[in-house]
């Protein structure tokens, strides 16, 4: 049923080929490679960024685990009392990583983890997956194979064949692991002195052996139990540390393992960031920045988020979907050449061919723009390529600025709306983002209601929000925000003043109360005070509204 076809002349075209398929079948062959390159570079950039983000997010977790490992077997060499006491009870130090249900994202986490361990703690790491270990025998085989490969890397690369052979022949038992460990540690001890000082000195004198169970839930219980019981017998000779990757909840350990087995483990729990937060960070960093020229439309983003929330909780899948969007966009849109950084885009506009100009003219958004212009200008736009190019450059610039502003304004708006009761515009910034993409947000009812609610905010909240907004706007690079920042600061000072005034007034009122000592007057006074306050507040709020409208105006003016 299988047939292999080999081409007779072995042509090796690797990367060009990819580009050739790009946009083939369509007539717009020009700029194909340019487009492809842009696409690839953009994607690579994004990929790097996401990996960076993930690494940062996992950093805390990894640090914790590393320090745990350091601690766990610190007493192995020194034979301290604590250590002996623990070995008496034959407890294996165990780290339980609760990683959440997005199993597909865990690969990266584990890769980072093993890298971090390799660099900091120990060269002896075995990563086990349930699918490789249907029985205890397979598990031991896999374990030994990985450990011995580690030792080859760490110690010397001289006799690989020997290891290969021995790996197959050695009876896989914990005894042989222990023997191997002893021989290896001796070797390293002797060898560190001679040559590999740099690599080994980072590790401790006798590095622990780390066994990672990637997906603990899918291991058969018997295998796990056997392994734990067997290795607990050897804990004296072998500084073993287990790491369980857990998708559901830490309770699973106790439901999987009977008490007699789980009592052999000395478990410490580590909780990773939830995948939702993970996604929010990713969206924050990828979509809500002006760094990447590629933006997702409302519907696409909604689909991706829905897949994430209702389907798999996999950030990895989200990013894959994002990649697909990018590829699709660059593949199908000849004008996507311009989807790059502003400076490049300007250059590229200048070198556009006539066909591409026609493509621009065919764009619906451009048509709308043209229709709004005066008659001569319209003719110019539709006939003269050079004029068209000029305007496109201008428009592109506008767009760029708009995106920059959009993000920060969006953040400000989010600051205001995220703490409102019932979250009319959504709790997460991504919801707000979707709403903004969907249509002009200030025309929606939700926006109205959120404004209503915002008017009822108390002063301290308002102040903190304003403060936050100021920070956001200051941190963003847009020039137009200077004014807004100034205004916001003004508001803030006014608030502070108001506060002071209010205190004073209260003092005054109290004193006046004492002075007057009349109930009717008191009542009257209170009433006036209330009125006063109300008016103040309404004044404040009108100012606030002004601000709101200003914000809205920003968005309004910037939406094309």
């Amino acid at each position, binding site marked *: *049923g*299988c*047939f*292999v*076809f*080999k*081409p007779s*002349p072995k*042509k*090796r075209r*690797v990367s060009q*080929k*990819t580009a050739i*398929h*790009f*946009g*083939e*079948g369509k007539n717009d062959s020009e700029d194909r490679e340019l487009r492809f390159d842009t696409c690839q570079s953009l994607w690579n950039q994004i990929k790097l960024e996401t990996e960076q983000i993930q690494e940062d997010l996992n950093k805390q977790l990894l640090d914790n685990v590393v320090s745990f490992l350091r601690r766990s077997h610190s007493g192995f060499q020194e034979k301290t009392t604590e250590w002996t006491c623990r070995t008496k009870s034959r407890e294996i130090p165990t780290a339980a990583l609760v990683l959440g249900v997005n*199993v*597909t994202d865990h690969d990266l986490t584990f890769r980072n983890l093993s890298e971090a361990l390799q660099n900091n703690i120990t060269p002896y790491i075995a990563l086990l997956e349930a*699918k*490789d270990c249907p029985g205890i025998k397979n598990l031991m085989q896999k374990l030994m194979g990985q450990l011995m490969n580690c030792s080859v890397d760490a110690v010397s690369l001289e006799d690989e064949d020997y290891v290969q052979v021995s790996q197959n022949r050695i009876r896989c038992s914990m005894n042989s692991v222990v023997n191997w460990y002893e021989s290896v540690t001796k070797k390293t001890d002797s060898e560190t002195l001679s040559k590999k000082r740099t690599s080994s000195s980072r590790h401790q004198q006798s590095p622990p052996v780390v066994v990672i169970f990637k*997906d603990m839930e899918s291991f058969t219980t018997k295998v796990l139990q056997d392994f734990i019981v067997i290795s607990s017998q050897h804990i004296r000779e072998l500084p073993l540390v287990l790491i369980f990757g857990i998708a559901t909840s830490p309770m699973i350990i106790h439901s999987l393992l009977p008490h007699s087995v789980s009592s052999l483990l000395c478990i410490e729990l580590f909780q990773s960031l939830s995948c939702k937060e993970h996604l929010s960070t990713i969206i924050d960093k990828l979509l809500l920045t002006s760094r990447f020229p590629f933006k997702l439309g409302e519907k696409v983003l909604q689909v991706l988020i829905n897949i994430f929330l209702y389907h*798999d909780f*996999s950030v*990895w*899948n989200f990013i*894959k979907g994002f*990649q*697909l969007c990018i*590829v699709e966009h660059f*593949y199908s849109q000849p004008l996507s050449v311009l989807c790059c950084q502003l400076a490049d885009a300007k250059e590229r506009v200048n070198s556009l061919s006539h066909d591409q100009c026609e493509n621009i003219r065919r764009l619906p958004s451009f048509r709308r723009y043209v229709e709004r212009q005066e008659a001569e200008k319209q003719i110019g736009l539709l006939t003269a390529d050079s004029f068209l190019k000029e305007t496109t450059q201008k428009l592109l610039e506008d767009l760029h600025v708009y995106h920059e502003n959009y993000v920060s304004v969006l953040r400000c708006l989010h600051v205001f709306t995220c703490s409102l009761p019932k979250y009319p515009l959504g709790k997460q910034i991504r919801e707000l983002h979707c709403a903004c993409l969907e249509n002009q947000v200030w025309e929606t009812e939700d926006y109205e209601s959120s404004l209503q609610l915002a008017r009822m905010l108390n002063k301290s909240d308002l102040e903190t929000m304003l403060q936050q907004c100021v920070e956001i706007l200051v941190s963003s690079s847009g020039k137009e925000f200077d004014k807004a920042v100034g205004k916001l600061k003004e508001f803030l000072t006014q608030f502070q003043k108001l506060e002071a005034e209010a205190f004073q007034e209260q003092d005054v009122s109290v004193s006046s109360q004492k002075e007057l000592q009349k109930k009717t007057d008191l009542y009257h006074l209170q009433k006036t005070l209330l009125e006063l306050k109300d008016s103040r507040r309404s004044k404040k709020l009108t100012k606030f509204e002004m601000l709101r409208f200003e914000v809205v105006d920003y968005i309004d003016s910037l939406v094309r």
Partner: protein
Amino acid sequence: GIKLRKDKAQPTVSVKRFVKKLENISDNEAQEILEEKDYVAALGTCAQDPVENGSSVSGGEVYSFKSPKHSSRLAELASELAQTPGQNVAPDHSKCPDKTTKTPQSSRKYMFLLLMHVFSLLLQNKKKEFVSTTPYRLRKRLAAPDPYLESESEYSASCSEEEDEEDHKEDNTVLSGQKTSAKTKAASTPPPSSTLTKKNKENKMSNLVEEYFEAHSSSKVLTSDRTLQKLQRRRLSQQTLHDLLKKAPLAYAAEIKELNQLHESLFSKWMLQLHLGFNIVLYGLGSKRDLLEKFRTSLLQDSVHLVVNGYFPSITVRSILNSITEEVLDHKGTFRSPLDQLDFIIERFKEDSSLELFVLIHNLDSQMLRGERSQQILAQLSSLPTIYLIASVDHINAPLMWDQAKLSLYNWLWYETTTFSPYVEETSYENSLLVQQSGSLALSSLTHVLRSLTLNARGIFRLLAQYQLENKDNPSYPGLSFQDFYQQCREAFLVNSDLTLRAQLTEFRDHKLIRTKRGADGVEYLLIPVDDSTLTDFLEKEDEDV
């Protein structure tokens, strides 16, 4: 239920009044049933009254099943019934002037009605016969449903062809069933006071019953008996079927062609996406084999690629892996397990990034490849950046093969490519219902070989064949063990020692008439590797000869 007892307390009631009463009763009953929404419960309560009247068994206990949707139907029927006695009284009057007997019977009648309803549910069809039968027969039949059911299963295949014959047959079976069922009937129905009243009652019953089943006849769903069995030429040879199918014109040829062109325009996009690390899966109605072939011939001519026919009945993951290691990687040597092999492949592809391989799998969801382990291996293969997988799936539940982990390894892009083209290649390994199984060949060879053997040898084979046919319903039938077989042959005076038997068996084995295999306990089991129908035919033929 209370009204029934009232009837009994006042035995002298006029017919008219009785009718009214019955109407009331039926209404009451209907309401009761509707209220309770549970037919069984209603049946139980109804049957409870006759028990008080002297019957011995309550229907609810015996026939415990639920059919709540019938309750309304029962109500309808009951009201209908309430009218029928009025009509039927006139002819009955001459036969039976004694109306007093009617009232206790009416309660029984009611119970009968329920019982019949129960039985009708059991029987589920054939009310036509009921309508035309006499009440006594009917009652007997109702009391003894088992023989009836048996007879029904016998002639159900040809039921609509000759009804008369059927009736005869049925009469026979019913009559034969009478005696056996007499006891059960006596237990389940109230003992009759006298034969005369019984006759009378049953005459009336007949009308009721007819009405009952007539009322029910419309609701029955008849399954069509137009099966393949009834076709004039129901079995064709493979060749004729093929020719016939070839002659049939392809509908909407132009549209399908257009559709295919649409799919073909996606080829370059697929290439791009494959290169970008996605794998492609095609789904949708129709054979996607031609499409993939076209893709292969048009775009993959100058690259290494592997075509896997998943529909091939003996394809395994191992063979896929083997063809990769042996032919693509030119590796001589064997592997202990598929996992080792996979590791080797992964290693090689990671080492040499210029190594590229396109894998086309037709029917990734075929019987042989849909297993968990196969999919795991294929997924791991496809996750390699320089192995490009493009596959097609046809089963509607094919996506259920993959869990999250596998999905992420596969990294699918789904393309809906409905082609509407027939699955000619894919089903070429399957047997068509319309094609005569290759039994004829086996049969002729069987008889041919056996004719050349001695009488004793034929007897031995017959014994084995009969034993196998007796066990044909046992799916885990391992075969006849040698010892048992020997014993049987001795008893039939066919062999005198196990050496002679072994000699005969060797002869059979040489002609591939039997197969032997060792069971788990080390006992030798003998099996004729021919399907049961052929074996039956063979035995029939043998019988004719002898």
